[in-house]
């Protein structure tokens, strides 16, 4: 399905500020995997997702989806394989466009766009039914600009948009981190529901260790641009937060020193 081979990512190469963020990531994601990704600040979690999505061109290595080499494909060319939800709730929708216009744009992800009408009547009906079934209180606000939605509503909407047409990979980059705990839980529940119902393959970055253990079938820990832990199935199911901390110390040779990871 998704394969990363020896992926290195450096920024500001050749300057005093040169940063080497990803140190040769090797990862094979199987169809149907729901992987949670944890790691401290600067571990390279977001950078890895950006590399997969093509927001940054990687410095060296290869990226494949379904054995298609996408290493040099631009972000918009990869979009037909990839759905994304960002941490910043404003990033996922165009705020001056209405809910239905945003949905219609996402519904055409990866397809050629022409001078046909941007949204058809049958689509309007479909979106309304979809939003009604999800009970977000958005079904009667299809004409509202998304700037008037709450952060949680925007994330839910982005999640629906990102899961249209069964993307090969769904990338979730701390998509609940900017929400209050109750809303975060709702969006997370919706995520699990959408991924499950559509049998999507998903990568979810989170800083919440409990969520990382509870959700998905596989867990990856990143540290200084390397994958230091990759567990799945039974092994993951049996794990507790304290085990995870110990494994981290063993694998990285350091104690966890990241308040955000420990406190959450």
């Amino acid at each position: 399905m998704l394969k990363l081979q020896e992926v290195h990512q450096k920024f500001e190469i050749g300057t005093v500020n040169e940063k080497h963020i990803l140190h040769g990531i090797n990862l094979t994601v199987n169809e149907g995997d729901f992987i949670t990704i944890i790691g401290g600040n600067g571990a390279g979690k977001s950078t890895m997702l950006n590399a997969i999505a093509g927001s940054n061109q990687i410095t060296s290595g290869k990226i494949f989806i379904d054995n298609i080499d996408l290493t040099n494909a631009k972000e918009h060319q990869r979009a037909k394989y990839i759905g994304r939800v960002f941490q910043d709730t404003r990033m996922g929708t165009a705020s001056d466009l209405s809910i239905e216009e945003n949905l219609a744009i996402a519904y055409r992800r990866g397809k050629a766009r022409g001078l046909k009408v941007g949204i058809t009547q049958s689509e309007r009906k479909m979106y309304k039914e979809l939003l009604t079934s999800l009970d977000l209180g958005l079904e009667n606000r299809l004409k509202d600009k998304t700037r008037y939605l709450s952060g949680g509503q925007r994330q839910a909407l982005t999640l629906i948009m990102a899961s249209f047409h069964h993307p090969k990979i769904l990338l979730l980059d701390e998509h609940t981190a900017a929400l209050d705990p109750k809303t975060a839980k709702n969006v997370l529940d919706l995520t699990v529901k959408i991924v499950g119902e559509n049998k999507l393959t998903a990568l979810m970055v989170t800083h919440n260790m409990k969520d990382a253990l509870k959700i998905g079938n596989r867990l990856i820990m990143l540290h200084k641009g390397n994958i230091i832990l990759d567990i799945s199935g039974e092994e993951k199911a049996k794990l507790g937060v304290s085990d995870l901390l110990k494994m981290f110390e063993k694998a990285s040779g350091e104690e966890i020193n990241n308040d955000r990871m420990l406190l959450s």
Partner: protein
Amino acid sequence: MSFFIGAIAQGLLWAVMAIGVYITYRILDIADLTAEGCFTLGAGITCKLITSGLNPFLSTGIALVGGLLAGLCTGVLHTKLKIPALLSGILTMTGLWSINLRVMGKSNIPLLREKTIISLLESLGFEKNYAAIFSGLILTAIVILFLWWFFSTEIGYALRATGNNKNMIRANGVDTDKVTILGVMLGNGLIALSASLVAQFNNFADIQMGVGSIVIGLASVIIGEVVFGKRTILRSLIAVALGSVLYRIIIALVLELGLKTDDMKLISSILLAVALCFPNIRNIATRNLKNSIQRGGK
């Protein structure tokens, strides 16, 4: 009252120019200074072709093409060569000065007894200002209807989203470079189209005539939105066209008060500055009002 009719005529001729600025400034969120050179280009092409004996309608169409090409240049500089938008516009604008002189062959082309769209309307019995109002109204209506349709197409949605959130629209598979180039072309095409009509009304093209046009366009956009609202695309387009008329009426009133035409550019700038900061002033004013009401209630 004649100054009033004249102002409406000018406003309608410039309305399409303001709509062109609206596309780059509001939809794409780019302050595109190409307008200054592009306006002269549209007027220059038109007058050159008309004095060479070409049909005025065809000349107007070719002016539109000239504007599209000017936009293409700025769009490519900005997206493909990664030059900041403001600078890309300045580069094209500056380069166009020389190109405009080449096109025109001299710095001023008068239209003496040549056939223009305006003179054709006059020969049908319209008084000159009314000929301008009539042709400006028809052109503006066509442009607004066209854009209303265009912005409701798939590409139109992509264009609006590109100006709004590049990350989002890229993640949805749109090449923002292409769409941005298209938008800048469209905007500048309309500016040249408007300039063509203005030149046919004024009966001349001058190398200087584009100077300050961006300020006029922006002022029309802002005044239109503040006064007539911007809830939907159609509403915004109509508001910008009306803003152009309102701008001309304000200028005409100021001139009636005794200021000279030499003061025009200063008045334009002051007007734009006031229009730009008006929403902030309004916010501060309502906040103060609310505060004072709250204080009063205690």
